[in-house]
């Protein structure tokens, strides 16, 4: 579904992303982990053609994303608040995205209904504009908006951050359900190793812009990741030595 070839992104003389090869099969859900500055958001921005690759390219469903815009109809994303229109109410925002994606009002209503437990009586149905909602509630709306119009590629940058525990559990349910759909390819980043290993079929670990680990999830993945981040593991010799063994629990800038 998605092929990444020889992709690099450089700013001045700092290389923030450098991926030789990465293939993502249709229907896979990828969990992307890495410390701050590892290049997760850069990769997502490149996937959405929001920044220009220095070299290489990404091909999504036979469309090269920095050449053609034909990837837009089947791709959706929620990366940060700049994907929200602050002066709309959540409902208006969802209808707006719906209209852009060719969905009727009824279809959007049905979707809101379907995920009413995710909203948990908040966010939707209050007399508030998106800009006045809490970060968590904003995120809920953004995530649901990314599900409108049955997209085939869904990109979520740190969807679990800022969510309350109940909503995190519900979101895990939603992601698992979507990832069981063979048409839907998902890319999710998170700093929470438990969440990632729980919802993803395949985990990609980025460090300083490079893929240092890429494996289909199994029972040992969580332990491996934890070990890596502790810096004890000797599995990733070259990089691990240079990496400060610290887990940063902040949100990325």
């Amino acid at each position: 579904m998605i092929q990444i070839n020889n992709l690099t992104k450089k700013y001045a003389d700092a290389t923030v992303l450098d991926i030789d090869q990465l293939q993502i099969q249709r229907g896979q859900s990828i969990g992307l982990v890495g410390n701050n500055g590892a290049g997760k958001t850069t990769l997502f921005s490149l996937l959405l053609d929001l920044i220009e690759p220095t070299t290489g390219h990404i091909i999504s469903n036979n469309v090269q994303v920095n050449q053609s815009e034909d990837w837009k109809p089947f791709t959706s994303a929620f990366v940060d608040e700049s994907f929200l229109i602050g002066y709309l109410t959540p409902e208006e925002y969802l209808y707006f995205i719906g209209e852009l994606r060719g969905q009727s009002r009824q279809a959007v209503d049905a979707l809101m209904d379907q995920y009413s437990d995710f909203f948990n009586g908040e966010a939707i149905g209050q007399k508030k504009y998106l800009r006045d909602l809490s970060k968590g509630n904003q995120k809920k709306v953004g995530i649901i908006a990314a599900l409108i119009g049955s997209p085939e590629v869904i990109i979520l940058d740190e969807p679990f951050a800022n969510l309350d525990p109940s909503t995190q559990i519900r979101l895990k349910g939603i992601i698992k359900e979507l990832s069981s759909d063979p048409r839907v390819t998902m890319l999710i980043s998170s700093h929470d190793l438990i969440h990632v290993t729980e919802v993803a079929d395949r985990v990609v670990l980025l460090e300083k812009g490079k893929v240092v680990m890429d494996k289909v999830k199994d029972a040992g993945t969580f332990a491996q990741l934890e070990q890596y981040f502790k810096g004890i593991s000797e599995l990733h010799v070259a990089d691990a030595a240079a990496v400060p063994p610290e887990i940063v629990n902040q949100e990325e800038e």
Partner: protein
Amino acid sequence: MFKIFARLEWKSFLRSAAFKQNLLFKIFIGFFAVLFLIEFAAIGAFSYFIIEEFIEDGKLAAANPFALINKFLVYWFAIDLVFRYFFQKMPVANIKPLLYLPFTKGKIVSYAMGKTVLSFFNILPGFFFAPFTIVLLIEGYDPLGVLSWHIAMLCITLLLNFLNVFLNNADKVFYPVVALIALLGVSQYYQFFDITDYTGPVFEFFYQQAWSFILPLGLAYITARYAYTYFKKQLYLDDGLQAQHETAKTENLDFLNRFGTMSTYLKNDVKLIKRNKRARTTFIMGFLFIFYGLFFTSDFYSGMDFGKVFAALFCTGGFLFSFGGLVPSWDSSYYKLMMSQNIPYRDFLLSKWWLMVVMTVISTALSCFYVYLGIEWLYAILAGAVYNIGLNASVTLLGGAFVKTPIDLTSNKKAFGDSKAFNIKTLLLTIPKMILPIVIYYVFALTLSMEAGFIAIAATGLLGLIFRNKILGMVEQIYKNEKYDTIAAYAQKD
């Protein structure tokens, strides 16, 4: 302790957005700030003599320059208040991090209010009043009276400053007051009712009774006390320090659906204007341009027809220029969303284009009152409107495509013109927007007749309509070429 506050202030000044520009720009800004102060000081110093001359020439009717100034001071202070309301921000944002530190609340409030006293809005009037007072002394006015008057003026300025502290966000009171002031101004101009007959003596009184500065001083003190207690009471995160939340109102805009796929954006644009302070201000300012033409009704311009053409373009196109010049920056805060959604640029642009056209038509209808000044004014307005719709709407969008300044929709800061929004390309585009119609007018008016001149302007506008799609195609191409730069520019926060 004062040192800590002062250091904080100094850093926030040095690191403010205005200073993050390049060096050349800093010099430019600094130059204009100083120029502005000097200009005010010069007005203060020379206005007395200029007015005196006008009185001697019989152009102005007043006993002496001082009386005339006193007469119009009420408008000075009214405008002062209006500007404060729009642009003087309460220093609330920087208070939050101080709250839990070991300062008393009183100190924090004093600091915040002291900061407002040092604002540009208080310094600028000082630069006018001080030289003016000196001139009065030189001219032999009673020193005690002049001093009293001077103190009174400064006290009133401070009074307005403190008034603004608790007047913030009282739109319902504010707009009617502005309307009233405008009405008073107009009725004075047309000599229906002259409020200055009543307010002039009040200001004169401060001079005649040297003790009377006590009154505004006392009032300023009371307002300051009140502002202090008001502020202090609100010093909680969930009270005064909380950002104001509006209750969301959803309006049914389904009637716009007749515009087809474009309606999605059009509905959004209507909401954009209705719900965002910055967009609302632009909208209102756009309509205030209708009165801009009055400047050109004075005798000074009577022989100059370009004034009429110019006025007509501004009266009918105020909204068009102020709003259209900032497309696509209006959508800057969610530009990433727009760029990753399946949005045809053409529909996006056409929605803005239609919005500008509709607003131009409305402005034109409202501008028709100029017909009272002569039928040629109506010709000018109509010709200007056709030119604006036909050519300027798309040319303005073209100019906007070069502007990559993110807009903070919720704040009015910078609403007065964004420094970065001026660049050579947008400047060059004022030629077809403003100068071309004047040239066309003169070519035909001087060879044929005035009517021919106006018809030629309108005809050029209609011709422009044919090129609309071509121009919009160019805009589209610019959007595409500069996509990454635009996204990066909009992502910058200041």
